[in-house]
């Protein structure tokens, strides 16, 4: 029986009860989805991929805000009298079955005229008839088949995003011109001095000139702008020699063809720009489906239910919440503002904020903080602040989030470019002076030739290709880095700061220990069957621990929200839950979460849930301690101190009871002392520290959903490889250095031709692409070789 998995979602089935024909389902939700599909001839969904589905979630009431026209209007991409287009983000999109079923939505709902999936971004763009259906109905339809869209406050603000495609245009134009210029300059490469060439060479030359115009003035404009900005800030960045090279190439070539002195270097010019842009394109490719810039807005809902004084419920936009408003928070909804609990049983899950997944119970009159998720029935609260002024959201008004504080990092390429530019300019001037005395007619020729041949194309390409390739390799290993600069910074760090809960410990796996009188076999069977009915995270965790599999039908079953479960079978009664529910007299102040058990009103014992550390944490720390300073900054109390001291090397600093601002300040302080800090965290409470650190790495159980703003996202299952990833970044640096050495060799060869005044267009046209291509080949092979050591 254990081998049976759900036909729809692939989860393990508990019983054979839910089945259609030969197909088994883990729950009624999955079965319903299957029924919807089979009624509409969409069962091919299951042909492309085994168990592609997700369990549909309960969403009643959650999307009531979509009845509010003003909110809907902000979400729509296009709206006409009867046609509306909406682009929805659906985290579950993961396989070809998903694409297929989402693009066949019109079979399920006739008022949808078309739907198109963007797989890398995990979005679906739906066009529908607004007179006959509403956005709410569409969201309901998607949720009913297990594709619940994710709508957050962020969608509300951004509105219609403009896609920036200018780099593709620039690359396309440069490539187009490069190809044509190459082809036009071919006749003169061989210098067949004859009547034919003399007659037509001007046509070829002027055509090349016109092809190079858009390349210089459009495709290469970023280099001029960047060089200008650099010079203004008195920095000789790599774009300065590039811009210099491009302008000298263009001016000298134009002068040559105007005065009929030669062919010019249009082929090298267009080729140079094309290769440079190619490097930029390679570097810019990032992970579409990941967001590195999240703040609280992507966590928060768009709307919330307000209860007016006459008990009427209405949906209002979240920014309209004022102090004193009564808000209704339903099961599984997020608390958007700080407030006082008025009514209901609050069981708050602060895992977004702290990374801690265990829920906290609150009494009426207690203060609730924004960012918590209510997990037990509906509650009513009174808002104490507006959204922007809540405790959690205030963190974002800290300066760290406002300025690009990391932009002052000097990349390897830019630090080398200063010396490079100075050297090239001095060589050029010395040669100029030398030739002025020796043979003045050649002086200007040599001067420009040096600037042309020394244009650091290969140097500019080394880092983008080496780090770009590493980015891709690490991405395959589930370490998603924002951009290539982050990799360079990662190689330079000397201190690692870790959050504890959710980062070093796992949210999903707990170590559970039983203390008390041992349970008899019928009691264990009863316990297991009682737990089966409950969806509470603690029940699920405990359920998976017990190995009794007999299925009995309980005589009675009652779940008390936020307290526990009571059930009976053949005159045997069991209570599972909080100490209060099971009448445990000793209600001690516990540091760890516990589930208490009593049968027939006699107290039996408790299951205590301990933090469970992720696989390989101890090993990782022992490896890291050889090169780095290690710190643990935890927001929790020090109940785990002993465990941590045992687990981690002695020199690790352990600091507890840290508020979000404390973490930020701690990192800031160490940075002023000269430390290069990596912060590894997961919750929103680490967001400030992640932003302040040199490299902020967010740990995520599921990379598609929640992670705070950061520089890199690391899949939780790969945490133990962190040390290897850092050492790969370091090897990346040495690869780039080797490529620099390689490109200097080309430059020296080129300079020999240039200084002696023998640089011919054909030599430049061979040397430039050759150096660029060999750098690309070298970096690609080298990065692939070093990444082998991950395995």
């Amino acid at each position: 029986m254990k081998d049976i998995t759900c036909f729809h979602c692939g989860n393990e089935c508990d019983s054979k009860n839910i089945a259609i024909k030969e197909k088994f389902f883990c729950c009624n939700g999955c079965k319903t989805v299957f029924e919807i599909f089979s009624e509409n001839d969409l069962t091919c969904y299951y042909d492309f991929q085994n168990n592609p589905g997700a369990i549909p979630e309960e969403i009643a009431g959650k999307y009531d805000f979509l009845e509010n026209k003003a909110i809907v209007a902000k979400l729509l991409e296009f709206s006409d009298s009867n046609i509306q287009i909406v682009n929805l983000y659906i985290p579950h999109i993961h396989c070809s079955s998903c694409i297929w079923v989402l693009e066949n939505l019109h079979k399920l709902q006739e008022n949808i005229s078309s739907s198109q999936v963007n797989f890398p971004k995990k979005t679906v763009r739906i066009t529908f008839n607004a007179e006959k259906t509403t956005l709410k109905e569409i969201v309901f339809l998607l949720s009913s088949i297990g594709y619940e869209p994710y709508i957050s406050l962020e969608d509300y603000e951004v509105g219609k995003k403009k896609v920036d495609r200018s780099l593709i245009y620039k690359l396309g134009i440069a490539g187009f011109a490069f190809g044509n210029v190459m082809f036009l300059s071919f006749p003169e490469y061989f210098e067949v001095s004859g009547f034919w060439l003399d007659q037509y060479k001007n046509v070829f030359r002027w055509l090349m000139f016109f092809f190079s115009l858009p390349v210089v003035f459009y495709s290469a404009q970023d280099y001029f702008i960047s060089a200008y900005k650099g010079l203004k800030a008195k920095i000789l960045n790599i774009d300065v020699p590039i811009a210099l090279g491009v302008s000298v190439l263009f001016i000298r070539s134009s002068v040559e063809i105007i005065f009929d002195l030669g062919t010019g270097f249009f082929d090298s010019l267009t080729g140079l720009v094309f290769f440079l842009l190619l490097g930029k394109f390679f570097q810019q490719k990032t992970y579409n489906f990941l967001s590195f810039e999240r703040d609280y807005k992507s966590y928060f809902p768009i709307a919330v239910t307000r209860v007016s004084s006459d008990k009427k419920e209405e949906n209002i936009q979240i920014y309209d919440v004022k102090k004193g408003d009564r808000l209704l928070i339903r099961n599984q909804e997020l608390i958007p503002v700080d407030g006082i609990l008025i009514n209901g049983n609050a069981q708050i899950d602060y895992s977004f904020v702290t990374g801690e997944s265990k829920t906290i119970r609150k009494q009426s009159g207690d203060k609730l903080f924004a960012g918590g998720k209510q997990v037990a029935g509906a509650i009513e609260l009174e808002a104490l602040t507006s959204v922007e002024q809540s405790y959690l959201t205030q963190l974002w008004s800290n300066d760290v989030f406002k300025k690009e504080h990391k932009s002052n990092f000097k990349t390897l390429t830019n630090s080398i470019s200063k010396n490079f530019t100075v050297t090239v300019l001095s060589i050029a001037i010395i040669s100029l002076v030398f030739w002025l005395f020796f043979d003045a007619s050649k002086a200007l020729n040599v001067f420009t030739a040096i600037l042309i041949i020394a244009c650091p194309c290969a140097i500019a390409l080394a880092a983008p290709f080496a780090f770009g390739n590493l980015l891709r390799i690490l991405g395959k290993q589930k370490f998603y880095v924002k951009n290539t600069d982050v990799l360079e910074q990662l190689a330079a760090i000397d201190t690692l700061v870790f959050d504890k809960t959710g980062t070093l410990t796992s949210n999903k796996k707990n170590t559970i220990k039983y203390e008390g009188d041992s349970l008899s076999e019928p009691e264990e069977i009863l316990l297991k069957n009682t737990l089966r009915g409950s969806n509470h995270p603690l029940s699920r965790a405990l359920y998976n621990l017990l190995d009794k599999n007999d299925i009995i039908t309980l005589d009675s079953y009652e779940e008390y929200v936020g307290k526990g479960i009571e059930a009976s079978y053949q005159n045997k009664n069991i209570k599972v839950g909080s100490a209060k529910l099971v009448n445990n007299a000793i209600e001690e102040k516990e540091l760890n979460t516990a589930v208490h058990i009593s049968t027939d009103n006699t107290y039996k014992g408790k299951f205590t849930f301990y933090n469970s550390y992720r696989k390989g944490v101890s090993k990782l720390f022992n490896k890291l301690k050889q090169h780095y300073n290690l710190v643990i900054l935890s927001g929790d109390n020090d109940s785990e101190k002993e465990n941590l001291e045992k687990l981690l090397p002695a020199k690790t600093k352990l600091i507890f009871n840290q508020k979000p601002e404390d973490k930020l300040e701690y990192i800031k302080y160490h940075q002023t002392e000269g430390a290069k800090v990596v912060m590894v965290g997961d919750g929103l409470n680490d967001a400030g520290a992640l932003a302040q650190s040199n490299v902020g790495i967010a740990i995520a159980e599921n990379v598609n959903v929640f992670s705070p703003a950061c520089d890199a996202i690391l899949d939780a299952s790969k945490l133990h490889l962190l040390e290897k990833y850092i050492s790969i970044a370091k090897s990346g640096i040495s690869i780039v250095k080797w490529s620099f050495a390689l490109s200097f060799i080309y430059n020296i060869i080129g300079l020999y031709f240039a200084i002696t005044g023998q640089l011919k267009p054909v030599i430049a046209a061979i040397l430039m692409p050759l150096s660029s291509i060999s750098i690309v080949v070298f970096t690609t092979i080298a990065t692939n070789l070093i990444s082998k050591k991950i395995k």
Partner: protein
Amino acid sequence: MSVIYLLLSLSILVAIVFFIAFIYSVKNGQYDDSYTPSVRMLFEDELVKEQPEELTKTKH
């Protein structure tokens, strides 16, 4: 009038036609999603009619 002018203008004309096609396709967003179309082209006529009588049994 030499044939070289004719050949040159023809070749450049062809190149420009392709260039315009490229710009047009970028503008239309063809390069925004480079993965989904490769999967989408494999779908066709997948709608298989199942026996309806068996399915009605499962409805309540």
